[in-house]
């Protein structure tokens, strides 16, 4: 089945089985590095992308269901030279160790903060209660998110 997926603002032609999870299309067909295969079960968040403003788990999302969606991956937010302010906050706080979980943490928080710019810390924690970081950089990640949240609500 042929699709023209809109990823990070650009159209991409792919020809894949409609049941293929979006993650495999992004990471294999489109060679994107942001979304990662963590569990394949929608339990950890490593595969997170933003689809039409919602953080979704691309590992359990059939590509056919997002054929017309506007999809943003971690690399769609910013570049190493010009990171998104949220990514910059993570750089400033050095809020990563292995870095494998970052799509889950950053994109889940981004989608949440876009809708709830004045979220309290407990609300932010609640939003991240289904996201894992096994290096447990939690403390720095929350600092980075608070730093960013302060900037956007200013």
């Amino acid at each position, binding site marked *: 089945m042929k699709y023209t997926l809109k990823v990070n603002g650009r159209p991409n032609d792919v020809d894949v*089985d409609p049941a*293929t*999870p979006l993650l*495999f299309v992004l*990471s*294999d067909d489109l*060679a*994107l*590095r*942001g*979304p*990662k*295969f*963590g*569990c*394949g*079960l929608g*339990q*950890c968040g*490593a595969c997170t992308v933003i689809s039409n403003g919602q953080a979704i788990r691309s590992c359990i999302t059939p590509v056919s269901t997002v054929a017309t969606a506007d999809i943003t*991956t*971690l*690399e769609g*937010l910013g*570049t*190493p030279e010009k*990171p998104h302010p949220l*990514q910059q906050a*993570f*750089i400033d706080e*050095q809020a*990563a*160790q*292995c*870095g*494998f*979980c*970052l799509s*889950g*943490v*950053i994109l889940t928080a981004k989608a949440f903060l876009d809708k709830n710019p004045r979220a309290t810390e407990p609300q*932010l*924690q*609640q*939003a*991240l*209660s*289904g*996201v*894992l*970081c*096994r*290096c*447990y*950089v*939690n*403390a*720095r*990640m*929350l600092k980075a998110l608070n730093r960013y949240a302060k900037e956007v609500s200013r």
Partner: protein
Amino acid sequence: MTRLTPDARRALASAGFTRRAFLKGSGALIVTFTSAAVADRFSGVLAQGFNGSGSTQLDSWIAIGQDGIVTAYTGKCDFGQGLYTAQMQLIAEELSVPFSRVRLIQCDTSMTPDQGTTSGQQSHPTNFNKTNLALAAATARETLVRLAATRFGGSASGLVAKDGVITASDGPQSRRVTYAELIGGKKFEVQLDPKAARKHPREWTVLGTAVPRVDMRDMVTGRFEFVHNVRVPGMLHGAVVRPPTVGATVAGVDESSVRGLAGLVKVVLKQNFVGVVAEKPWQAMQAASTLKVNWTAASNALAPQQGIYQQIRMEPSTDTLLVDSGDVDATLKASATVLRATYQHPYQMHGSIGSSCAVADVQGDKATVWSATQSAYPTRNTTAMLLGLKQENVRVIYTRGAGCYGINGADTVSYDAALLSQAVGKPVRVQLSRKDEMAWENYGNLFVIDQRVGLDGSGNIAVWDYEAWSAARGGRPGYNTPGNVVTGSLVGLNPAPFNPRTPAPAPTNPLNNGSNTAPSYITGRVRDSQNGAGTVRSERVLSHRVRSPFFTGPLRAPERLQNTFAHESFMDEIAAHVKADPVAYRLKHLNHPRLSGAIRAAAKAANWQTRPSPRPGLRQTGVASGRGIACVCYEGDNGYVGMVAEVDVDQDTGQVRVTRLVVGQDCGPISNPDGMRNQVEGGALQGISRALGEEVTWDNEKITSVDWRTYHVLPVGFAIPKIEAVLINQPDEEACGTGETSITVVAAAIGNAIFDATGARIRTVPFTPERVKAALAARRSTA
């Protein structure tokens, strides 16, 4: 043929040269540079034959290009702990070059020295003291200064090396020469000089500073190349079919069950190893789940998890006596009071967030493996064994995976990829499923530990008696035992043999407390040596190792954490029994200034109130708060920590919330304070997850904790405690490790705080609400 990924090409190109030819010399790596284009193939990958400490030849460690770029080669890899940046700081500091001019190539068997495995927080002591990478950099600087002296026609004494330039301090301005002018593009051709002087930490300007991680920007913007992102031309995708139960064997594979599946290339069977290869990853996963395999179940059922801590005491065991003063039974008999307690620690898993992945390209008699293994050279050797190839024809290129915290699935999936690639003659990428990762990894060992002390009339410890049983099987494959992980075992290679030995021979070697089997409070006397950190002279440390049905292996703070949980919980029980303050009572039994210093630092920062536990005025209901302390000399002499935990215990639900962690940690001279802080914090929080929730589970035939619903870890969004880390810099000491120190004491510190808050003692990890409630109920029934 060996292919380079685009990133590898870029790394080589940016390293200041475009082609490295590897020539066979006198058993050593020889590096040459030409201006030719990047070679896509490495002819003649060389077996270096060095031991785990690397190479004695400077050219194996450091090369300086004509453009002044310094390229260093290390056998210690970064899997997220920040070691890559810290090693670049080391080179910049010791060689007196700007940080921006340093490149680092890590763990590639065709290029870097063989430094064995990156583990056990050994990289800092190994590469940052007076050997290996640090010595190479110091040797290079001194060599350059000598070359400059020769060029200037004077002595080396008046010369100053700074920013890659050597100047004569007493001469005219013209007497300056750059490193590139002295040696650019040429070999040093000198041996590492054990007398080369390292800079004193008090003179550091790059080391000792919080240089940001060089990989951070690429990570947070999704550009960083993990092993999961490696793509080589013509690459196919594999998936494995593991046995459904422990010990099951293949009776047959019905290939017709997958005939006609889209993209399927091949079904591969080798003894009990079953895998499929397809054109795309999703197709491979579909084929693996569709393939019908007839399995013959193992004849024996697994020992029930309920009762496992009793069961392992009955098994045949390999016994080890680390310390035995010979008077323990008599001293116990003569003691005014004898206290005893038993502690239990379950199997826990590494549980990497990314299922393990590797890419292998086996072409004829040569192979290349992109692997997240912590053991590049050992994995090269064992992969060669599995494939029936010569070691020198296998190249392992370390490429980072998800944080591993020890031996996760990285080694075994490297074998999977290599076997499948060999079967199809094309490059194959394999990514394990979550279940395959969790059901078959090498878990951290299960432990049951009996502790006993005798107290004298003043309440001091007169005798300490430790006896433990732990279950183990396999482990790191090392250089020759691929059967230590599941894939090697499935193709018919055995794990390291288990040889029961009872009773243990008397100890003869000085105490090596590498697994923290001995508590900090004993003298550790063996013959004339005394390697313990404490004062207790009547001492016995006896371990029984039994066979585990599951693979086990090093998990962050392996065995050190389990042992320390028992030692530090018990020390707290003893202090409570004699109504002594837990900090003061520890200090009284220690004879180790650095450990005592770490304890004092944590207690001071936590504003520790001196009094016995439990706290006065205990209530039986509602939320109770308390504080606890724990400490350890990690591995005996590889890092020192004291930790104060503060907790809230909901006595109605059994929920424990850690509200504050204060850590005093000493790893010698601090190479990167922010990197150290990140490790201290991450270890402390990971320790909470392991203490409160993590436990491998099984039924009578298989592992049942196979995903994040059945293996309970804390998420990013849990109510994290306030963490304060006091970093104790020791510029006059040697560098020791820091990555595994803080996690080692967390369970004990929390358990002690729960006791302080409630008077209930929990002796089994994890501290689930059910266990906490049971301990609270037991307290009521005895009150």
